[in-house]
């Protein structure tokens, strides 16, 4: 398998677009929206916080859908996508957690608190870290892909848990931007016109970045598997197809 020049050009164009959009998004975060009236400069990190969570949600969503597709079709290409989704999701949710901690220090006066959403997002991250451990522990490729797909379905439960927890638990202090909240959140703010513009643009940009990175990761994985295959062929002397 080799990649056509045409697809490579498309990927390069998408990557360049993602970079330009990200710079624009940062400019908006720092220049277009003014400091928030209660939280000041600290609120600016919120756009990256929610943007990266959207990236994580898309990635984990891709991983569970393609995991199910792998179980139904047994095509290794679905497994490549599922693995890429988990890796991207781990990175993005890592950014979500770190930016959240940076925001919580000035607003909540602490880096970390055992609050329902923080706890559930930590569980989510650990579940996907366990997914990587499972893959590393199984030798047989077919079995590794099958078990990974099964576990990607189980791990997605923690993503759903993270999203619904602040809406069912009344004692959370984590702010909720959209939808109903029964909570008494600490650090909520009023969504003004400029804040909404910046937020929507950031969400769009992070979606583009996620797609571009997923594409790169899938391509890398395909090439890595191709190299494995070629090595095996060179060792056994069979060049077959």
């Amino acid at each position, binding site marked *: 398998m080799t990649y056509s020049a045409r697809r490579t050009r498309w990927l390069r164009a998408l990557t360049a677009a993602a970079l330009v959009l990200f710079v624009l998004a940062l400019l908006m975060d720092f220049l277009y929206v003014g400091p928030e009236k209660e939280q000041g400069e600290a609120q600016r990190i919120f756009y990256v916080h929610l943007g990266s969570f959207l990236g994580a949600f898309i990635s984990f969503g891709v991983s569970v859908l393609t995991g199910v597709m792998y179980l139904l079709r047994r095509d290794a290409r679905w497994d490549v996508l599922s693995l890429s989704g988990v890796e991207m999701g781990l990175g993005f949710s890592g950014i979500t957690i770190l930016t959240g901690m940076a925001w919580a220090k000035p607003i909540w006066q602490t880096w970390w608190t055992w609050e329902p959403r923080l*706890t559930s997002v930590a569980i989510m991250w650990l579940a996907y870290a366990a997914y990587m451990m*499972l893959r590393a522990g199984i030798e047989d490729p077919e079995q590794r892909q099958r078990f990974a797909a099964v576990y990607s379905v189980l791990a997605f439960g923690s993503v759903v848990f993270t999203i619904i927890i602040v809406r069912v638990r009344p004692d959370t202090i984590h702010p909720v931007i959209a939808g109903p909240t029964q909570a008494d959140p600490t650090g909520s703010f009023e969504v003004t016109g400029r804040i909404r513009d910046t937020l929507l643009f950031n969400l769009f940009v992070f979606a583009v970045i996620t797609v571009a990175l997923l594409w790169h990761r899938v391509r890398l994985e395909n090439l890595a598997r191709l190299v494995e295959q070629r090595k095996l062929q060179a060792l056994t002397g069979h060049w077959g197809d």
Partner: protein
Amino acid sequence: MSAGPRKLRPLMPTWRAVLAIAWKDVRAELRGRELVSAMLLFTLITVLVFSLALELDANARRDAAAGVLWVTVAFAGILGLGRSLSAEYDRGSLDALLLAPIARSALFFGKLVGNLLFVLITALLLLVLLSVLFNLALVQPLLVLVVLLGCIGFTTSGTLIASMSVHARAREALLPVLLLPVALPVLIAAVRASGAIINDLPSDDWLPWLELLAAADVLFLAAAVALFDYVVEE
């Protein structure tokens, strides 16, 4: 026999196959006595370690009892689940079970019933042990119900995940890493419900957790039945 792939009809009804597999595990345990005794000894040691580490007075014991209960059940359960599946794998009897003309779900529920029995025995004896050592009235119907529901959810996800981790390198280390994040919603709900009941709080404080626990059990059972076929297909 006719040619072509044809789905074989199971030779015995599913519930009899389930009971047969569970009974096999119980008989093996009655003869070998390695699983439950190891879990019970581990439980005893864990409670001792907790008592030493936390240096609890009467009030602190009441607050810590639910946490000690479920951490101990989870770790003892992991010990038992790992052993139960790796014994089948090492002796090659898993292949024999897979060859048996029974539904795969019967195999899953058979192992689940056996595992659940062992984990439940351990958990109920732990309740008695904590009642004595922590001087609390823990053997009460509501708490037994929470223990039952918690053990069902934990053992269901545990049996499914242990059937995967048994094939891995370093399987003893992998099982807790894989199982705990998945089972945590069950454990959290169980700890909260038990804690509220131990502290004699009104039903508003434990009923939502009990409902969450029951819902999680149903979800885990459904997910495990749907996914188990894909775990054991070779």
